[in-house]
C-alpha cells in the first residue's frame, strides 16, 4: 500500500494554522486511513526549513510521497478541492455511498 507523506508548513500558532492542520488530518483520515505520515513545521520556529523549500505563503502542504511532489497553498477549507489538488485517492468504503446518484 502506498504511504502518503506530507509536510505542512504553517507560520505561528494561529487560527489559520490550526484550521489547516485539522483539515489536512481530516482529509487524510477519510482518504488514507492509517496510510499516511504528516509532519507539521512552524516556519516561525524553524525558518531554515521553510527556506529550504522556499515557502512563501502559508499554510502550505507539500506531498513528498508518492512522487511527483505536489504543493497546495491555503487552509484547505474546501475538502473536495484540497483532495483533488493533493491527488488523494477516492475515499474507501461506505462513506462514498451517499454520494451516488
Amino acid at each position, binding site marked *: 500500500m502506498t504511504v502518503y507523506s506530507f509536510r505542512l508548513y504553517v507560520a505561528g500558532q494561529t487560527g489559520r494554522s490550526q484550521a489547516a492542520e485539522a483539515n489536512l488530518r481530516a482529509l487524510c483520515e477519510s482518504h488514507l486511513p492509517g496510510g499516511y505520515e504528516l509532519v507539521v513545521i512552524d516556519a516561525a520556529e524553524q525558518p531554515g526549513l521553510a*527556506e529550504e523549500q522556499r515557502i512563501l*505563503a502559508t499554510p502550505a502542504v507539500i506531498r513528498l510521497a508518492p512522487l511527483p511532489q*505536489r504543493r497546495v497553498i491555503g487552509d484547505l*477549507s474546501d475538502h473536495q478541492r484540497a483532495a483533488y489538488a493533493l491527488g488523494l485517492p477516492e475515499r474507501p468504503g461506505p462513506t462514498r455511498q451517499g454520494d451516488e446518484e
Partner: protein
Amino acid sequence: MNGSDMIERLATGINGFDQVALGGLPRWRTTLVTGSTGSGKTLFAVEFLARGIVRSGEPGVFVTFEETPDDLRRNWASLGFPIRQWESEGKWVFVDASADFEEAPVVGAYDFGALAARIGHAARRIGAARVVLDSLDAVFTRFAEAGVVRHELARIADSLEDAEVTSVITAERANEYDHVSRYGVEEFVLDNVIILRNVLANERRRRTVEIVKMRGAAHRTGEWLFTIDPRDGFVVIPLAFLVPPFARASQVRVSSGNTELDQMCGGGFFKDAIILLTGPSGAGKTLTCLKFLAAGLAAGERCLAFTFDESREQVRRNSAGWGIDLDSAEESDLLRVVCDYPEVASLEDHFIRIKRAIEEHKPERLVIDTLSALERIVSPRALLDFVIALGAVVRQHGITTLLTSAPAGRFTPQLTPSIAGEIASLTDATVTLRYFEYGGEVRRAIAVMQTRGSGHDQSIRQVTIDSDGMHITEPVAGIAGILSGAVSVPAQDRQADPPAPGSAQPDG
C-alpha cells in the same frame, strides 16, 4: 503628520543619490523604488546593500522574487561586488523567493507568514541594517489574489519598520509617466517613493531619478540625470550642490601661458578659477589651450586635457607646431591628454570619464576643448547641467580650468546663443576672441570680462598670431560693436589710421 525634524537619514552610499535626497533615505523606513523595465531598479537595490557593506559595514538581506541568487551573484560581480564572499562573511544573505517551479494551487485562505518569518530570521541572523525586496511584481504574477498579496506585503513592510531596518522595495511601472506602479504597491508604501525613468530623447537614452515623496523630509525635487557606469554603477548627476560655491576662493595667481593675457586679467588667472574661452574656429582657442597647458607643465603642475574636436595625431601636430612637446610631458606622467569623439558616449558618461580622470590624475590644470562639440549630442539644458556638475568637481579640487566654446559660425560673433550666457555666469572669467573687419582686413580681437574680485583690463585689444604664438597688442580704438558683431566706425574716427599691431600696453 509632521515630523520633519525627527526623520533620521541613512546615507545610501549610491553615487550622487544622497545629495539629491539631502542625506539619504529615511532611516528605519521603507522606500518604494519604481520604474519601467530596464530602468535600473535592481541595480539600485543591489547597490543599496552593497554600498552599505562597503561604506559602513552594514549587513543586508536581499529578498529576491524574480532573479535567482546565482544570477544576481554573477550579474553584479562585474561591478566589483563580491556577493559570495560577503555571504560567507555574514554581511549579505539572500532570501530566495524566486520561483522556478509552477506555483501551487490555492485552496482556502493563506498569508505570507513563512516569508515574513524567513526575512525576519535572516535579518536577525546577520544583524541586518538594510533589507531589499526585488521586485514585487513577480509575487503578483504568481498569486491571483492581488488584494491578499498587497495586504501581506504591507504587513511585511510594517514588520521591517518595526524591526528597525531601512528597506528598499522595487516594483514595476507600465509607463514612464503614469501610475506609480503596476500593481498599486504605492497604496501601502505610502511615505517614500522614488521613480526611475529611462526615456529616449533625441535618439539618446536619458535616465533620470525623481524623489516623488519622502515622508516629511526635505529632498530635491524634479528629475535628476543618472547614468549606469560599468565601473561606478549607479551615478546621479549633477553634483553641483555638493560644494559650497566659492568656499575657499584662492588669491593665488597662475599664468595663462600668455604674458599679455595675464596682464589683461590683472596678473594671471586665479588658481581655482574656471575660465570660459569663446571664439570662432581659427581665432586662437586651441593655441591658447596649448599655451595654458605648457605654462602649467613648465611650472611642474599636473595637467589634464580633454579634446572633443581633434584626434590625438592632430593635437600632437598642432602642439609640435607651437614648439610644445606633449609626448614627453605625457611620458613623464605630468600630462594626460584624452581625445574623444562626443558621439561615443552620452554626456553623463563623458562627465563620469572626466570626473574619474580628475580623481586619478589629480591635475592642477584642466582643459576642455570644446564644449560646443558636446553640444552636438545633447540639449543646451543638459550641457548647462554638465558644466554645473563639472564646476562642482573642479572647484572641489581647486583646479584651474579652461573651457572653450565656439560660436555657430566663423564670423558670427554671438556665442552659441542657447546657454552661453548662463554658462558664462558660472565661470570666473570669460575670455572672448573675435574676428572683425577693418580697412579691408580680417583682424582678431580679444576681451576679458567679469574676472572675479579683481581689476582687469576693460579694453578690447588686437591680437596677432605668428609662429611664436599669440600676441596681444594695443586696444582697438574707434571701433564699436566688435563683441556684438555689428561693427561700426564712429564718424569722428573715420580719418584716423586703423589700429595697428604694436607693443602691448598693459594698464591693469
